[in-house]
């Protein structure tokens, strides 16, 4: 197995579950735990692995003070840099959780998170809409989450199989 092959195998496994242990990965791919840990570190340093996030259903906790909005933004592209400068600027705001350049009727699709509706609305009107080169914004507040990052909320998935079968 080449280094690249091992890297891809590790990435695919981590993408499904980043809490899988180095020991399990080592057994799976027939290499040592050290090799796994080193390969992962190297990929973290190279920013191939950017981070590990946890998907939480805040609705199920007593702390449901999360408001999410998806915002369509039209911007004026700038000479030489196109959309990059403005997109990077928007990305710097901690309230902004996602920024994508998209095709279609507007240019950037961004997701914003806050604790109250008011806070998010304030962010849009005061910080986002006022940026130079931002032509317009359309804000969609998220009312209910059904699926995110490939995971279904309230899936209720159970193993219905018989415990032993031929």
């Amino acid at each position, binding site marked *: 197995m080449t280094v690249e092959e091992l890297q891809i195998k590790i990435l695919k496994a981590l993408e499904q579950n980043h809490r899988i*242990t180095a020991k399990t990965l080592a*057994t799976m791919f027939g290499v040592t735990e050290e090799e796994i840990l080193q390969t992962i570190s190297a990929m973290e340093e190279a920013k191939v692995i950017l981070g590990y996030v946890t998907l939480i259903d805040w609705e199920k906790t007593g702390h449901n003070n999360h408001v999410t909005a998806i915002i369509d933004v039209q911007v004026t592209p700038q000479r030489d840099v196109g959309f990059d400068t403005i997109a990077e600027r928007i990305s710097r705001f901690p309230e902004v959780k996602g920024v994508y350049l998209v095709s279609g009727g507007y240019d950037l699709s961004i997701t914003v998170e806050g604790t109250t509706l008011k806070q998010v609305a304030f962010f849009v009107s005061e910080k986002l809409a006022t940026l130079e080169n931002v032509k317009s914004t359309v804000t969609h507040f998220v009312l209910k989450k059904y699926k995110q990052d490939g995971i279904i909320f309230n899936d209720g998935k159970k193993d219905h199989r018989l415990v032993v079968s031929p």
Partner: protein
Amino acid sequence: MSRPFVKKSLAELPPSGIRKFFDLASAMDGVISLGVGEPDFDTPWHIREAGVYSLEKGFTNYTTNCGLEELRREICLYLGQKFGLDYDYSSEILVTVGASEAIDLALRAVLETGEEVIIPEPSFVAYKPCTIMAGGSCRTVPTREEDHFKLSPAALEEAITPRSKVLLLSYPNNPTGAVMTKAELLQLARLVQQHDLLVIADEIYSELTYAEPHVSFAALPGMKERTVLINGFSKAFAMTGWRIGYAAAPAELIAAMTKIHQYTIMCAPIMGQMAAIEALKNGAAQMEMMREQYNGRRSLIVNGLRQIGLPCFEPGGAFYVFPSIKATGLSSQQFCEMLLKEEKVAVVPGDAFGHCGEGHIRCSYASSVEQISTALERMDRFMQRLARRSRKKTATVFKP
């Protein structure tokens, strides 16, 4: 007192060796099961959707005995693309209630009383009872771990008698995970020809091979005329509960099997057939995904079992490993019962698949990586405890 109503031959048929274990394991809580012979994935959503849609559109009726024409056409296309086979959808395909029904039909259609079916073991639990219920007699051939549980030409030749009619071949194999290469199959084909045998090829795991693509027995020169090819949707498309399988064979054999099918079953359920059409048309990508997952788990469980002192050869197909437990000195049944009681891990004793499976256990890796990892940890603990116990015993024996 009334006379016995159940006929003698059936009363004498032993129950499946899996049954007892099922009862034991089902009565316990917190069991991690590596004893399951079906995919842990749900049927891919687009296939389920097609089933639901067919119901909504009112497809709730019988189909022709041999199955929906569109499904049979798709099956022929698939067999052509995958294995280079050329079957006629109108006369050479029969859609059945799972591969299980196809196995039963094939045996019932061809066996005269007392004619022999050669069954390499360890094997799927249904072959022997179905042979007996069809009036045939079983001639089992043990395969060996040293040969990676392949059927050797020598062993086959030795098993053949003047009464032999059928060779039942099942690769990739349940419970061993063994596969056979084209070259190896060609050697068997020569003997099949020479002794004028019919082959029932249960290739239900044909999509689940991890090194080389599966070679269908029917695709070997001269073999299509003497093969009943059996396959289905249960394993490849995670569709066990839909109960759709099929047989592909020369028209004369399909006609005979259809006779039994039309009077006993009528037809396979229509919503399952509709879903199966969708599986063949658009199921390749999801199937690849599942195969890739199985493959990762396969290395995890093979390496993991070896590390804890349970040697196993690397299975090339299906989703089973068949490690040897001979070093523990326990029988398969003892090992499995103790493992279940002490560590709540369910695996299946190898002798459930034939005598020569004794000394082995079947572990299925149709389970998540997390489950397999936990099961391996528990089995490791179990193996260490066994080793300590046997050291103690030896120590007492050798006390001066």
